[in-house]
């Protein structure tokens, strides 16, 4: 006996096996991201007054990435539709676009990450805070003391809260500021450890990026070596494209929630 309904739908459920499987898997994914979104809400509600960041992320870049992902969803549907219409060449073209768009997304995302890792908040001995992007870093940390010097491009603030609402803040002139190691009380870049906002930002977008990469690998396989199945078992191959497409749409959908939550609110 062979396993039934691997390609043809079962009459009473109207679904083939893999489609049931992927929907169940996506249900568990909803719970996974749901827990992280709940965490976001709880941390944000629990943050002290004025200490939840606003406007830390670059909205135009985020919008651009949103457009990139939505476009990739469209090309995914087109790729599947092409197979349904028996146009293998068009399928190849559209899914090549999907993969390129996925890579573009990851590229833009890594640029954003790099920006955060180069962004420093430096508490100085005189009580001021220097905040800006590191240009030259020759600082050394030994015996719980900083030595050496660095050059950042940014500005000074008196109160930490000024750094938290960048939406409302007046535009500070950014200039090159030399920093002496001996002045530094605390130095911290905007990595996940910076505060709970960066923590949830990096965790959510990092997990999402892993999904993008995973999806791109699967689609890449089906586009490349996996597409041989088109010749032997076209129906099954079309199903595979549909299944991987469903996953891709889910990844896209997660971003549709991530973008407003992290960038706009």
């Amino acid at each position: 006996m062979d396993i039934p309904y691997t390609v043809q739908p079962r009459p009473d459920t109207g679904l083939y096996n893999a489609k049931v499987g992927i929907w169940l898997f996506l249900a568990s994914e909803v719970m996974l991201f749901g827990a992280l979104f709940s965490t976001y809400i709880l941390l944000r509600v629990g943050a002290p007054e004025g200490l939840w960041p606003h406007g830390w992320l670059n909205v135009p870049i985020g919008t651009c990435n949103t457009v990139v992902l939505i476009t990739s969803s469209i090309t995914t549907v087109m790729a599947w539709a092409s197979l349904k219409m028996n146009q293998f060449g068009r399928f190849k073209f559209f899914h090549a676009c999907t993969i390129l768009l996925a890579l573009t997304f990851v590229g833009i995302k890594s640029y954003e990450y790099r920006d955060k890792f180069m962004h420093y908040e430096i508490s100085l001995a005189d009580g001021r805070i220097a905040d800006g992007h590191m240009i030259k870093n020759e600082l050394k940390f030994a015996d719980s003391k900083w030595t050496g010097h660095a050059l950042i491009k940014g500005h000074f603030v008196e109160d930490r809260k000024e750094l938290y609402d960048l939406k409302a803040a007046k535009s500070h002139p950014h200039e090159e500021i030399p920093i002496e190691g001996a002045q530094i009380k605390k130095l911290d870049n905007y990595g996940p450890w910076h505060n709970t906002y960066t923590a949830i930002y990096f965790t959510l977008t990092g997990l999402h990026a892993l999904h993008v990469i995973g999806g791109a690998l699967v689609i890449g396989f089906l586009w490349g070596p996996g597409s041989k199945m088109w010749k032997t078992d076209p129906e099954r191959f079309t199903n595979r494209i549909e299944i991987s497409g469903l996953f891709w749409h889910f990844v896209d959908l997660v971003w549709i929630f991530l973008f407003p939550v992290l960038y706009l609110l």
Partner: protein
Amino acid sequence: MQASAHAIPHPGVHEAHHEDLGFWRQYVFSTDHKIIGIQYGVTALFFLFFGFCLMLMMRWQIAHPGQAVPLVGPLLASIFGDDAAKGAVSPNLYNSFGAMHGTIMVFMAIVPLAFAAFGNFVVPLQIGAPDMAFPRVNMASYQAYVIGGLIMFVSFFIPGGAAQAGWTSYSPLATSIPGEGQTFWLVGMVCLITSSLLGAVNFIATIIQLRAPGMTWMRLPFFCWAQFVTAFLLLLAFPPLEAAGIMQLMDKVAHTSFFLPTGLAVGGALANVSGGGSPLLWQHLFWFLGHPEVYVLILPAMGIVGEVIANNTRKPLWGYKSLVYAALTIGFLSFIVWAHHMYLTGMGTRVATFFQTTTMIISIPSVIILTCMFLSLWGASIRFNTPMLFVMAFLPMFGIGGLTGLPLGFNYSDLHLHDTYYVIAHFHYIVAPGTIFALFAGIYYWFPKMTGRMMSEFWGRVHFWGSFIFMNLIFQPMFAQGMAGMLRRMADGGANYSQAKTQGMIGGLSDKIMGLHTYILWAAVGLALSQIPFIINLFASIKHGKKVTSDNPWQATTLEWQTPTPPPHGNFDKAPEVHRGPYEYSVPGHSSDFTPQNEPDPVQVPTPVK
């Protein structure tokens, strides 16, 4: 195809479906659900044994704090060095053993055995399917489980030892303990969760899609229903813990502060963290899995109990539909009771009231299930074989476990009992003489189908009576200890709070209560000895057990018994067709006292076979 008509062996069946795969692909990287089920079973039994050994050493330490463990003391000293100086279990090592005992038993022994092993072997057979819906996903699921298990196992031997923060791994304690034990625990958990998720997807898809023609939902054996609900619990409850695990891993590795509050002090100094996190959040996410997990532990066991009872009472299960709806209700409600583990966290009385209410409501379907099982015995002429003995013990033992849970579900009484030995006794009554007894019943019951041989009835009885007596001797005294106020998780078993050490103070633990530790220790040793006949019986019967004379030695109605023994790759000689409900025993006017599900109605003229 009637089972009784089949005599083994079945020449010709193997050639049809079996190409020679070689040892590795047939037994190690197998995609056959039966082999994977057995792989799961053997691995899980190993972990069950290992977790039990950890417990034995802990019981020794509790009864005789600071004294060298007999027999294995030198071994402990050579492996753990200072943590087991002179062969005694140090508090650090005790904490490791405690945390890993819980983790191993829940995530690496009971769930894989109850859900993955029995589910894999039995469910496709019972629904009349040739295999699981996704055989390769099934293999990946087992491999993820093994990798997770190895990571957990290896963590004992790294510097600093295994995780020490309990199986619940509460933050900030979990991330504050030095050493990488917790990191290993978290990575191991991510693997185990991945394994469970893959398994859950596979089970649900299999039950929805691969039911044989005629196998309608209300003809599904109760065991399949139980596994179906269990799979949904795993599918939807595990991901939040995975998310929580990722966040705790970030706290530990990337120094974020998801669960670390502002002003956290560790070892008297302010911790170097940004703060702003919420320790309560971890508990919510953990118990959001943790409570459905309780039903993941018990539902497959109830499924086994249902099968064994129907088979050995030779009667239909009483209230089959009520059982199914009760299981579904449990599945739904188990998602909204989690915070009854958190009454003492200060989350607020209104929240506590809500969860207290839902907790009381969820006891109703549990009682329905137990009542149906009891009523099924009424008026039956019961066959007392080993599986049935274990099941008969399951019923009252699970009853004790369930009823003692009520005082913990009530906010008021929980304030006194929380975190005491009463809690330990309560949930062990559910899981040890409850679930594990049902699992033993399942092993004795399905062993003939797996191997074609019976396990020894005599040694089965020795195993049963020993386990039954010693289980009760171990856990019954803990109720008394807990009500006297003895807290769990203390490496000295509460010696520092005993009257002997706190003279003149009110509320110290009396000598009687402290003395129970010794009884429990020897009962645990007795329980260990009672497992020897089982282990020998299990392995010896594979080669030397009595051969079964038919494919259906228990004369059962469900489809797994209507296959050749052991079932070949692809399971059925001919695609089965289902004509009736799962438990048509003793149907009046029928020649035999059981009517297999795939037997056509006599009024219909069957199409000629061959």
